[in-house]
């Protein structure tokens, strides 16, 4: 069977990665098959062309090296943890000193408190019944207060009214009891005279007004009559003038007719 190198063998030969035995074997093959050698040479030429691709220049970025052990002691995790714990304990101690803590354990209950011991406050349980009772008691108290206030006000008011009326009645009774019969008659006559005078004045004033009114009315009526008469006369005068004018016109026409009648027979004779 004839030896025929594969692509792997050819590439290893091209890049000089074959051992001496294989290299010799391949070169013998190329002597028998120069076309294969030419093909490999064309690939070698391709490689030579490829070498014209140049590398690009580039600057490597700076590398910052942090040396171990350069971390200061106070920044190490152990120191920071210890300082943190110490600060917390110190804070608790200062707070305890200032606030006066008290720790009790009784009846299975641990109690930590600051300052004064809190007084135990019985829980105030409110039931519906208690609330209703409280409301009713409050309402009853309120109603009682309202009733008391109302009766007191009523009493005061009644007292003031009776005081006022009794004062008035007393004054009238005193006046009436002090007046005599003559004084009453004088008072009554005075009242009558006063009334009479008032009526008289009223009548006088009303008659004077009526008189003035009648006079004005008569004067107005006479004025009206005068005016009417004047207008009638003017009307009659106008009618008379009209009649006169008609009469004159009639007379002229009559004269013309007569003149015509007189002159007509003469013309017929000729």
């Amino acid at each position, binding site marked *: 069977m004839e030896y025929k190198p594969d692509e792997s063998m050819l590439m290893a030969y091209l890049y000089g990665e074959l051992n001496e035995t294989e290299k010799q074997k391949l070169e013998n093959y190329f002597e028998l098959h120069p076309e294969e050698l030419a093909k490999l040479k064309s690939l070698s030429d391709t490689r030579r062309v*490829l070498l014209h691709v140049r590398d*690009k220049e580039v600057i490597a*970025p700076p*590398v910052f090296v942090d040396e171990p052990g350069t971390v200061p002691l106070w920044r190490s995790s152990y120191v920071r943890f210890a300082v943190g714990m110490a600060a917390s304990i110190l804070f608790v101690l200062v707070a305890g000193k200032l606030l006066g803590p008290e720790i009790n354990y009784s009846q299975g209950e641990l109690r930590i408190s600051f300052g004064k011991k809190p007084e135990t406050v019985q829980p105030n349980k409110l039931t519906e019944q208690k609330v209703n009772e409280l409301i009713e008691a409050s309402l009853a108290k309120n109603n009682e207060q309202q009733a008391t206030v109302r009766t007191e006000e009523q009493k005061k008011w009644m007292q003031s009214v009776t005081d006022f009326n009794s004062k008035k009645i007393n004054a009238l009774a005193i006046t009436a009891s002090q007046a005599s019969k003559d004084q009453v008659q004088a008072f009554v006559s005075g009242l009558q005279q006063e009334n009479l005078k008032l009526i008289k004045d009223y009548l006088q004033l009303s008659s004077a007004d009526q008189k003035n009114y009648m006079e004005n009315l008569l004067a107005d009526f006479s004025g009206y009559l005068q005016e009417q008469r004047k207008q009638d006369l003017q009307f009659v005068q106008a009618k008379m003038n009209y009649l006169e004018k008609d009469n004159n016109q009639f007379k002229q026409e009559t004269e013309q007719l007569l003149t015509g009648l007189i002159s007509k027979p003469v013309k017929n004779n000729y």
Partner: protein
Amino acid sequence: MAETLLDIAMMHSDNLIARAREGDKNAQGRLVQLWYKRIYNFSFKFFFDHDLAMEVSQKTFISMHKNIAALQEISRFKSWLYTIAVNYCREETRKKKSNRSYSLSELNPGEAEESYRWEESLHRNENPERQLRHTELSDLLQQCLMQLGQEQREVVIMKEYEGLKFREIAEALNISENTVKSRMYYGLDALKKIFEQKNITQESIGYGI
């Protein structure tokens, strides 16, 4: 590829890795300084995007800092670091697919003089015209690389640009060595066809530069 002092330091950093694994922050910082450029360039070639590459690099080293104590074999540090980077690259790809957003450099590549690429170039003191051609060629080849599938691209970048052995790539991607070699073969073959389509040959490149 010529080895620089940095590469040599990376290859002989076993003591540094051991100290970092024991929690030495200075050693971890030194590892970041040593490997940042490699991880950034791996990510950049994977995405062809500066911002995503920075994102992945930073995440990779943060993860390294957190998890290096769990690293069992010091010799596997390299593949372990690339495993973290690849995983973040895949994560960012998933996010990018779901977000469907584009960076400015992605929308307007090729403004070589005005872009950060010009500023950051190692060869900026060269002839500007020559530098511009190099940058254009590099971007063109990077675009070809982006046409590969994700799996092939990972392998090609790790092998061609990061210099990992097939064994290390297999460890980083948690696949067999044969699978890595197979992906590499088909990846190179696909790139050869892409270069032919774009008429990119070693000769045309030499003439252009």
